[in-house]
């Protein structure tokens, strides 16, 4: 078994119109920029995929990565906790114009809903958001005298994830705080596609150091020197470049 994919275009070829796509990262850290850009390339060339529901903590920054995906008009709905950034103009304009739907979820609830999706837990209770607008319409139950909100799992058709090392069985490590939502999204998607800085042979990752075991991964593609969103934005980058 070898989960290695030959290139980025192959990695994103199977994503369909209307798909729910989880995209890893917190801001730029751990964001799979190259996979996102490959998806944009495919859309520019073919008009697909579109009408995507995207799950990410944020709503993109500047004009690269997730912001560029939104700017292309590929995203119908965004599920996130914090759609603000240093330069959130792409999302903000579309949102205020009613061109993109937003489901706002508290960050810990977002993480737990994704984990629940991956762990086969259809619903759970959390104190978070009790008594607030974000709990509207959700069942409330009292346990041991305290009120909790019922939240549902979140699953996806595809997860696009950035990791550090990956072996051909899909075992992954991450780099510092670039871990964030990535391991959870690996668990919650029917198909998890991972860009890694280096593909290594099985056994090169210490079994103790594996953060995402390969069972959660369907494809691994090597991007040797991944771009960092923060760096691209400081250079004023726009993707695709022709759009600049």
């Amino acid at each position: 078994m070898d989960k290695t994919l030959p290139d980025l275009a192959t990695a994103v070829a199977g994503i369909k119109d209307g798909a729910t796509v989880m995209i890893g990262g917190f801001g730029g850290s751990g964001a799979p920029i190259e996979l996102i850009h490959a998806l944009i390339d495919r859309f520019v060339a073919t008009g697909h995929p579109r009408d995507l529901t995207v799950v990410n903590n944020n709503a993109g920054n500047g004009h690269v990565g997730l912001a560029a995906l939104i700017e292309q008009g590929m995203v119908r709905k965004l599920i996130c906790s914090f759609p603000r950034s240093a330069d959130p103009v792409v999302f903000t304009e579309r949102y205020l114009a009613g061109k993109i739907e937003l489901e706002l979820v508290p960050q810990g609830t977002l993480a737990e809903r994704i984990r629940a999706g991956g762990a086969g837990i259809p619903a759970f209770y959390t104190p978070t958001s009790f008594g607030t607008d974000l709990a509207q319409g959700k069942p409330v139950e009292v346990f041991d005298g305290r009120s909790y909100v019922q939240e549902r799992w979140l699953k996806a058709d595809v997860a696009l994830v950035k990791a550090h090392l990956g072996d051909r069985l899909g075992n992954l490590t991450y780099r510092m705080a670039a871990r964030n939502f990535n391991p959870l999204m690996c668990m919650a998607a029917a198909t998890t596609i991972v860009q890694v800085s280096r593909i290594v042979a099985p056994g090169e990752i210490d079994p103790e150091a594996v953060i995402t075991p390969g069972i959660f991964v369907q494809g691994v593609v090597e991007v040797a020197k991944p771009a960092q969103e923060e760096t691209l934005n400081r250079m004023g980058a726009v993707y695709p470049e022709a759009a600049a």
Partner: protein
Amino acid sequence: MKLSATQIAWRAAQDIEDGAYVNLGIGFPEMVAKFQPPGRQAIFHTENGILGFGEAPAAGSEDWDLINAGKKAVTIKPGTAFFHHADSFAMVRGGHLDVAILGAYEVAETGDLANWSTGPKGVPAVGGAMDLVHGAKRVAVITDHVTKDGKPKLVQRCSLPLTGVGCVTRIYTSHAVIDIESGHFVLREKLAGLSFDELQSMTGATLHAPQPVADLVAPSL
């Protein structure tokens, strides 16, 4: 004439695809790992937090921190990963395993399985069985076709406490391979020397055979 436990395990192993993620119940099902067809390599999961473990170590070289769910010593191999119990059962409950192969006291035509308790006497113990039956994409059972007393283990309704409801999809027995489809036992393979009627008489619910029934064959092992 019937298949030995080893031969039943061999037969079950033939249906495991290359690259499949597989959990083998403790005891008899563990034997399935030995019979992977050439060119195929399944990745074995154990509840206590190892994916992709290797064979048993030589006697005397066990590391008792490196055991499987049956508390038997195993080994690591390239690609092994360790994780804690919540992550381990996220793999199970979350539907990430391709196959779980379990033993059975009884299997009903509804797919119900009883394999954890023989009743109120004695000490009950469930382990991971109730999680496994609701997690793997395919839940198969390997079992003798009848009990030691000759009573059917494949029944209309289980009489023993259930492990799971409507969860088993295929049964490998000492005499046959039977799928469970829409609440029916559907016969796929039987021993060549055994008539349909003979097999039916050993089975506690109606056997269906909508398609030709293949011979169940296994090598001498």
